[in-house]
């Protein structure tokens, strides 16, 4: 787990099409907009574009709230069978999460103004979801969404 956290935190940003550094609150909206554009460009349905944009919005806000700074990195991957996939990697070198299962519990939050629904909500919106975190090192969240055929 610890090794994986470090590996993910050290993923080179060059491997991604879009990288948004989250430093200020406005960067949350920037990350959301970038994700939306990439998903639209790949021909995702309007519903899935909205899901990806919403998930990125939640991820960026988590970085801003709990780690102050971090990065949202987005890339497309071409799967052998099936259409393209959008992968979003959100990384920060913040305090880390002591109990990942606990923060994935719906309604759990350490923040006053929050529904405690962000991470558990993202998991429901996306096809793949993984949180890797180590206290004192940081947190990485990887999510993916496949383009669906109609």
């Amino acid at each position: 787990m610890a090794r994986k956290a470090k590996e993910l935190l050290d993923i080179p940003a060059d491997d991604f099409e879009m990288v948004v550094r989250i430093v200020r609150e406005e960067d949350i909206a920037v990350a959301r907009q970038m994700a939306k554009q990439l998903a639209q460009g790949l021909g995702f349905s309007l519903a899935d574009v909205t899901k990806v944009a919403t998930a990125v919005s939640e991820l960026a806000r988590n970085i801003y709230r709990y780690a102050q700074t971090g990065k949202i990195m987005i890339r497309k991957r071409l799967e052998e069978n099936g259409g393209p996939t959008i992968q979003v990697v959100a990384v920060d070198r913040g305090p880390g999460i002591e109990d990942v299962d606990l923060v994935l519990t719906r309604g759990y939050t350490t923040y006053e103004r929050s529904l405690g629904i962000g991470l558990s909500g993202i998991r429901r919106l996306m096809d793949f979801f993984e949180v890797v975190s180590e206290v004192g090192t940081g947190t990485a969240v990887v999510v993916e969404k496949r383009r669906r055929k109609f």
Partner: protein
Amino acid sequence: MTFKEKVVPTIRVADCLLVPIQIDLDDKTVEQLQAQLLAEIQEQRVRAVILDVRMVEVIDSYISYTLSETAAMARLMGCRTVICGIRPPVALTLAQMGIELQGFLVARDLEHALALVWSP
């Protein structure tokens, strides 16, 4: 409240305040909108505030939280809050995340919203 202080222009219709949101809601904007609406409820003594979110493409958990909080505040000031025009992809996303927009009456469109407000 002067026009310049408003993040979203509002329209007074009879005893209601219409709030057509035509901008992308980010964290700061939705917080400013909350303050604006509370001030306008007090100033204009309206019976209801109707948020039209037809143009809003993303509503995430914090935006929902702040909007619901605004509805609760409005209720404490004796004012009903109606939200209308939620787009299908936004409805889908909110429902999948399990977000209910508590505190709001929900209407299909403006006409429906006014009917809800004026119904006894």
